[in-house]
């Protein structure tokens, strides 16, 4: 029997015509990729908080309460292409993890953040398993192909 090869596509949350950045959810039959379904299940205010973080990142506003990345000095630079968006409802925190890439061949400065997985937690520290998963997705050839196809001719 042939193994089922997961299919991937991007569901754009912010406009891909933005001059600098955009955000998309990775959608797949692969169960590990659940950022979109987790986001859709959020309560109204929590969702608004996460969306505010999307806006801030897209518009270049650094605000660690809403989103942040990791620089080369952390985790030996292993996660410097990863990014997290944050939400909070009561005492439980919500996180959406993704990776950043430059999909436009005509504009290498343009940045896309692809959201792949999520977590709920009570502590502030990031669980590296989410980040490792994001890095794995970033290096997945089929996902890279799906990203390129979404930006064909751009």
């Amino acid at each position, binding site marked *: 029997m042939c193994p089922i090869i997961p299919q991937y596509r991007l569901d754009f949350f912010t*406009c891909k015509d933005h001059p600098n950045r955009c955000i998309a959810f990775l959608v797949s039959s692969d169960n590990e990729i659940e950022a979109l379904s987790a986001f859709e299940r959020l309560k109204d*205010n929590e969702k608004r*908080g996460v*969306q*505010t973080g999307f806006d801030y990142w897209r518009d270049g*506003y650094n*605000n660690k309460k809403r989103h942040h990345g990791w620089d080369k000095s952390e985790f030996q630079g292993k996660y410097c292409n990863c990014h997290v968006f944050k939400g909070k409802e009561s005492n439980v925190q919500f996180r959406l993890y993704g990776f950043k890439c430059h999909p436009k061949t005509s504009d290498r400065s343009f940045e896309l953040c692809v959201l792949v997985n999520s977590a709920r937690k009570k502590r502030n520290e990031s669980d590296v398993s989410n980040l490792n998963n994001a890095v794995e997705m970033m290096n997945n050839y089929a996902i890279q192909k799906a990203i390129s196809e979404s930006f064909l001719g751009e």
Partner: protein
Amino acid sequence: MNEHWTEKSEINFLFRIVSDFISQIEKKMESLNMSQDQLAKDLHISKGRVSQVLNNPGNVSLRTVIKLAKTLKMKVSIIAYDDNDFNNINGPIISEVFKICWENAGKPHDLFSVQKSGELEQSATNMLNFCYDLEKGKNQWIYQNGPMGGAYSAQFFPINNDFKAFPGSLLRVFD
């Protein structure tokens, strides 16, 4: 084209713009090294209420916004603008953008100051164009008095190694 999430409801829009304000408040608290406890004390409200205000921007009244700003020795303005985004594809412009532009314009307090700052900018642009014209042509010593005195000429910076503009309304081209 997809509309921005703030277009879906007024509550969404309110949440976003008050979030911008809360971000500014938190930044100010950080710069003053002020805790939520202290803010609660200064506002004469409970710590729980402060936490609620900071974490649930959709539920903050304009009166609370003013109180918060005043407690931190800040002021608030409500700004309406037209950014040609009629269908709200891009969402509201982040408040910080307006704040930084205002600060970069020399923090004008009234429309007279805005006009003056516009004139200074125009003079600086004229001077810079003059510099480029000179750069293209001759190598010579030139002294040029700035029409507005020394205040704006300090904004100039060296265009390249051979060409320098100094504060104090003196412009020099080195041979």
